[in-house]
């Protein structure tokens, strides 16, 4: 029956609005309850934005957890000014730990996501006092990696970072491959670099109206003439189902001129007559007048 309950819960969560979701998270988050004072804890520091407590299962005596008072699950979600405040408090707390416990150093540890070791749904910074040769662990391993793999990763990262920061990136200069005799063959530990996740292509949408025969891009002057109330904004497939044809702005092709109808011929004839009178007097007409016919 537990699976049924879980399924029902998941359906409920999907239907909830963001405000309801936040309240639900707060009720189920033990750290939010600690901050609210409903659950007992060993509070060490608090101000208007952050809250620091002693960890119940510490790595070392004095292991602190620094939490934001608002419920944030991971670091990217936190607004910048709050994160900056947390950073400054982290530095101050690390300093107090050094003073109080007379230790040689501290480790500041942040886990973002389950795969990184985040155990609770509430973001927190671990500040752990460290002594020499203590059995805490937390040593960052060092592995070998080949030059080629590093350059591939570097290129991908630089492209994404330039996008995020808005830097107009310069193309990375490819260093000439130096062939040096290697004393020991370094076995690359990482054999497969995973491909960058493919973004699902978003289908392009075009503008038309009920009365119109064709659909246009948003920049097309015909599209700009359609009043906003009558605008229909849809993908190509759906517009073709409605019987709309593409405009030249979409296809890029010129529409062939229609075949000459009777009306056009008459118009052309009139134009040709007008041209004659403009150029000069038609001698035939004049001669007729004089000849009396």
């Amino acid at each position: 029956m537990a699976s049924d309950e879980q399924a029902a819960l998941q359906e409920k969560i999907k239907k909830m609005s963001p405000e309801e979701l936040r309240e639900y998270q707060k009720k189920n988050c033990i750290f939010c309850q600690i901050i609210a004072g409903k659950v007992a804890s060993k509070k060490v520091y608090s101000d208007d934005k952050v809250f620091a407590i002693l960890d119940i299962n510490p790595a070392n005596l004095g292991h602190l957890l620094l939490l934001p008072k608002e419920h944030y699950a991971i670091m990217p979600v936190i607004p910048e000014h709050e994160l900056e405040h947390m950073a400054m408090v982290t530095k101050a707390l690390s300093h107090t730990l050094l003073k109080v416990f007379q230790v040689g150093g501290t480790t500041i540890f942040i886990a973002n996501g389950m795969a990184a070791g985040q155990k609770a749904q509430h973001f927190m910074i671990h500040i752990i006092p460290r002594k020499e040769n203590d059995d805490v662990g937390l040593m960052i391993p060092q592995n070998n990696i080949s030059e080629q793999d590093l350059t591939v990763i570097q290129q991908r990262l630089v492209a994404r970072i330039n996008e995020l920061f808005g830097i107009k990136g310069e193309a990375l200069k490819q260093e000439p491959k130096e062939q040096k005799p290697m004393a020991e063959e370094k076995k690359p530990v990482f054999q497969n670099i995973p491909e960058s996740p493919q973004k699902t292509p978003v289908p392009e949408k075009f503008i038309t109206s009920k009365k119109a025969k064709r659909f246009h891009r948003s920049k097309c002057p015909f599209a700009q003439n359609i009043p906003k109330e009558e605008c229909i904004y849809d993908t190509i497939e759906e517009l073709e189902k409605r019987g709309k044809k593409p405009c030249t702005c979409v296809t890029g092709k010129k529409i062939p001129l229609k075949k000459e109808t009777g009306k056009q011929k008459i118009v052309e004839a009139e134009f040709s007559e007008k041209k004659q009178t403009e150029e000069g007097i038609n001698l035939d007409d004049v001669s007729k007048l004089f000849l009396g016919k």
Partner: protein
Amino acid sequence: MTDCQYCQIIQGIVKAKKVYEDDKVYALLSPMPASLGHIILFPKEHVPILEHVKDPLVAYLFSIANKLSTAVFDSLGAQGTNIIIQNGISAGQRVAHVCMHIILRRENDGLNLMWQPKQLNEEQMSTVELQLKEATNSIGEFEKEEKKPIDLDKKKEVKEVKGDNYLLRQLRKIP
């Protein structure tokens, strides 16, 4: 500091795979990574430990680390990131220059960065709590960024209008 490895990297004496640089910080790919996409981020100013770094710079470091970790997340298909600062030799700091490690994590990648939790008794915990409460009372206001002094001479230069317009002269004459 010529002995410091990271300062040499900033000056360009040592080759490194740079990922991001601006006037305050420098980020590069670690040559001996813990996992694919291990970035080392450090301030350009030579500071040995975190406590000596000025408050606005600490704040800036954390916000850049946040943005870098999202960039790495997107481009290398990770499921989590770890941000670690090793502050002091007993914490494992190898170079005497503050640095932050941004490590990408995927499920079942074999990295063990967790610790064994210890069971401490109530007495120890409550004494520690009291000690720390007293000490944290001294945490007061944080330093703000120093605003650079404005050069008044430069301001005057800007005000001089090039090519005095006769219309403007007329306007100035009006009381």
